[in-house]
């Protein structure tokens, strides 16, 4: 064979016959999109997911600006306005049994609920990803040990495990957040481990190993980015669960404690007045519901966008 027939990308010859075209080069006029761009394009077409994302962004902004936007102090009592209904002047969503403005409490409560939901997911994801990456990539006794521990954590219904942890640490918002974070760890560990088990047999991982990339580098630079799709979807759906779980623990008296303006606490306190003033518990419940619904819609949209094969 003539040496010039070798079509190598390293061939520097000027003869056009032997010029090797890089595989990334495309016909002029054909627009090439990366997988991320394609996913974003699909997501943009999902109106429900986009509306949900805008709603959630608004909620985050409103919560962040609570000191500026809330019309009143969330724990300021005014017994003359006790249990006034929505649309009362100065109290657009009414007042609770101590005459506290429900709208202001909802805005401040949103801060807590969103912060708890997102930070619990971040904490659970950080630990879960680490455990799943290490177990899945290295295998052996370490993986067996991690999987047995995860099996034990998963042998409890999630909310029961959270309750057990709070029982051990004592009621309070911080402990409730820690409890729901711990409960979330196995969920992420399993997702990542599953992805790593298939990824570690892929050629690009072998290639990285052969050229001497250290294990840590392979995990962070090559394996982790390929697990991000399912992780993003899981995390979006999980924030909703975490918000509901944290509010549920507060509702049971095990999470945030009165007089904190937290949605679960507000709902629990309003229960005593459901005959006379149902709005006191309906409002915070509606806030939880709308945020969780938006997160679920966005999660569904992200799943369809990131993995169109799943779309039915």
């Amino acid at each position, binding site marked *: 064979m003539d040496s010039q027939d070798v079509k190598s990308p390293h061939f520097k010859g000027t003869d056009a016959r032997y010029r090797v075209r890089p595989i990334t080069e495309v016909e002029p006029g054909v627009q090439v999109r990366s997988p991320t761009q394609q996913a974003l394009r699909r997501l943009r077409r999902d109106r429900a997911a986009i509306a949900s994302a805008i709603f959630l962004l608004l909620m985050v902004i409103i919560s962040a600006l609570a000191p500026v936007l809330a019309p009143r102090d969330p724990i300021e009592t005014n017994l003359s306005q006790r249990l006034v209904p929505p649309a009362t002047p100065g109290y657009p969503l009414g007042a609770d049994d101590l005459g506290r403005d429900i709208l202001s409490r909802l805005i401040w409560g949103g801060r807590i609920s969103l912060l708890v939901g997102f930070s619990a997911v971040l904490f659970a994801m950080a630990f879960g990803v680490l455990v799943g990456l290490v177990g899945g990539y290295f295998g052996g006794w370490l993986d067996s040990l991690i999987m047995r521990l995860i099996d034990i954590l998963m042998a409890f219904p999630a*909310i*029961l495990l959270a309750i057990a942890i709070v029982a*051990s640490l004592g009621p309070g918002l911080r402990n409730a957040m820690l409890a729901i974070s711990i409960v979330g760890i196995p969920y992420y560990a399993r997702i990542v481990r599953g992805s790593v088990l298939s990824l570690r047999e892929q050629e690009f991982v072998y290639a990285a190993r052969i050229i001497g990339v250290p294990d840590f580098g392979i995990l962070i630079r090559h394996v982790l980015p390929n697990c991000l799709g399912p992780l993003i979807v899981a995390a979006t759906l999980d924030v909703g669960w975490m918000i509901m779980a944290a509010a549920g623990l507060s509702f*049971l008296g095990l999470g945030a404690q009165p007089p904190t303006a937290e949605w679960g606490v507000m709902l629990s306190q309003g229960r005593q007045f459901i005959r006379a003033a149902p709005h006191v518990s309906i409002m915070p*419940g509606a806030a939880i519901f709308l945020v969780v619904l938006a997160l*679920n819609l966005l999660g569904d949209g992200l799943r369809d966008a990131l993995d169109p094969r799943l779309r039915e």
Partner: protein
Amino acid sequence: MTAYIARRVLSLIPVLIGVTLLVFLVMQLAPGDPAQIMLGPKATETSLAQLRHDLGLDQPLHIQYVRWLTRVLQGNWGRSIQLKREVLPFILERFQNTAYLTILAVLFACLVGIPAGILSAVRQYSLGDRTAMVLALVGFSMPIFWLGIILQIVFGLKVGILPVSGMRSPERTDLVDLINHLILPSLTLATGVTAIIARMTRSSMLEVIRQDYIRTARSKGLRESRVISRHALKNALIPVITVVGLQVGYLLGGDVLVEMVFSYPGIGLAMVNGILARDFPLVQGAILLVATSYVLVNLAVDITYAYLDPRIRYG
């Protein structure tokens, strides 16, 4: 099949040991001295030391665990500090009440969720399908404690046809009264599960009706209703059964909130009251019972799945 069951049961042993260890450790980490809680604030140092010795609390942790586990296996689950009675008979009684609630909720969820999922799949993208899936998403996103309160307001207080709390009316022991009390809490509990079952049935059914053997059944000239009921449904329901089973286990723990809303005397309510009263033997017993039953339900689900789908047991 027997080999599969044996393998599955054996694999359960380390999990159950882990569960007991975790329950034991969680309660050990709890703040406060059990002897002090039992004897109250006025107890002398001598009586506290004596009680700690009697309870074995002065022993190393692993000895305490083995002793506790031996007692648990012998049926001695300790005495409730708050109720001053044996824990095991009390939590078994409460567990039975929770089981009524769970069974009714699962029945309701299957009766609504499975037909809704089938109809959605058969009429994919129709108005009915879209409505059912939106409702499923709404049901799935609704905090059950909030839904419970809304049902209490609507059916209990505004319409006034159903009792809103407790398990029985005073001086009534008949079944009708019990069912009346169970309707609202079980509906509340069933909502999220119904949504999950409907979504699962729909996607499973959609997968099955695209298979070749369904096309063959249609091309033989079978009526569509027969294709669906005789050919598609059998296979489509296999994963649904797993989901239903898993939900039973989930409900056993998740109904704490519903029991709280409806003041229903189940094991969840007993557990939360126990935590607030720092009644650790009761809490420990309740958590152990629910977790063990969850593990056993999962085992039953796995075995049923393997029975229905031979690929699992030979896989």
